[in-house]
């Protein structure tokens, strides 16, 4: 196999998704791969009751900080839940070769993967990397 040239990463501005974006950006920088930062629009955000404008600038800054050329960073906004949006993208035209997501702490058991990550792993036709939050990484 060859190294992935197109990497998609789920990003919602949360600490978990920032850890995923940093990891994906570091990999993309090292491989000279293109990175697609995917933001899923939820119910409140769709209604203008939560903002998304800060996310794009922040995401581009993180990617640039990891050494990814700005022209290789694509910001992508889709309506839906992060899991379904990334699956849809992986099944669609021009799919990514690698998907990177963060994980949210489960309600009670901090060791469990969030079910978004698990659902994605079950459905995605390409490899999925689940990045732990920064405070759990060594």
């Amino acid at each position, binding site marked *: 196999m060859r190294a992935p040239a197109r990497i998609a990463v789920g990003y919602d501005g949360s600490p978990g998704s920032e850890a995923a974006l940093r990891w994906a950006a570091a990999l993309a920088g090292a491989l000279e791969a293109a990175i697609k930062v995917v933001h899923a629009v939820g119910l409140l955000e769709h209604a203008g009751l939560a903002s998304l404008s800060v996310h794009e600038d922040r995401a581009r800054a993180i990617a640039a900080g990891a050494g990814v050329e700005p022209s290789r960073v694509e910001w992508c906004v889709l309506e839906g839940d992060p*899991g379904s949006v990334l699956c849809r993208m992986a099944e669609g035209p021009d799919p990514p070769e690698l998907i990177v997501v963060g994980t949210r702490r489960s309600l009670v058991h901090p060791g469990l993967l969030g079910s978004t990550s698990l659902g994605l792993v079950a459905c995605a036709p390409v490899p999925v990397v689940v990045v732990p939050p920064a405070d759990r990484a060594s």
Partner: protein
Amino acid sequence: MLILAGPVGEREHDGGSHPERPARIRAALDGVSDLRLGSDLVTVAARPAQRDDLLRVHDGEYLDELESFSRRGGGALDADTYVTDTSWDAAVRAAGAGLVAIEALESSGEGAAFVVVRPPGHHAQRDRGMGFCLLNNVAVAAAALVAKGARVLIVDWDVHHGNGTQEIFWDEPDVLYVSTHQWPLYPGTGRPEEIGGLDAIGTTLNVPVPPGATGDVLLQAMDEVAAPAVEAFGPDWVLVSCGFDAHRADPLAELALTSGDFAALARRTAAFARSPGRLVLFLEGGYDLQALRQSTAATLGALVGDLPPPEPPTFGGPGSEAVRSAARDRRRAIEELSDRLLAVDSLDAPVTERPRWGLGGAR
């Protein structure tokens, strides 16, 4: 006769400025009062669903997590969904209200029931709350009916796709799940190609429609896509995920329905029931309080007493072609999956031992 089950959530599960708020229940109850049904209205109180009722559709570990999270004060489940210290009790009573409604209809043998509860349910998956939903109220009721040997039709006209209900019954041949919803929109599932798992091919039916779609488009979906499937399925019970957020005034989506359109949808859906007293409507979304009140009155007024709706129905919006293409895409997906099944069955195993591929359910 109208049976009103509930209310649940008139004060509990309060997220402050969140649009899924306690005042929604008062608006729905006002819509019921507007009908002046007198002795034709029977109110039955909700009772908490039993753990066994919930376990038919949810994982025990998720139930434990949710209860303990709520008892410790709660917090955010995701960017949309909150939990408070009263959420668990409200959610369990909301899930139980549907069971009470079914019992009341079984003993009356006539009329329809309206389950006036929140938090709503249709986004809640087996192991995860999301999209304002914690426990899947309509699924708890449907699973209880299936356990008693019934075949259940769920019609979901909430403007959002009911990904949780679809996931829960993905492989259940005794539940036909029919959804109309705006596309693209949260939660991003509900394409026409999503038709159910190998054990239940065709028992999931999705008709996505574009922003601006009017009532005639949703009626076309019911008549041209849903009706033939319902006819072939033959439901004993009809449950409705009755969200009113497809109303043109709703702040969360962009469909163009009026309360008059919900009246027409209600009549169509009632006609899917083979015998009287087998129709239960569950409140799901609907975030404009005036639209919620009017739509409640119009929907229930069409079912009991055939009262005129306060707003005329709507016509001429986009989406007619989307309905036709949904029918085509669905037919093609059913053919392809059936062919795959035939190919596998002819290889080795007896038909009763079908392999379960990880098709990913709702996702």
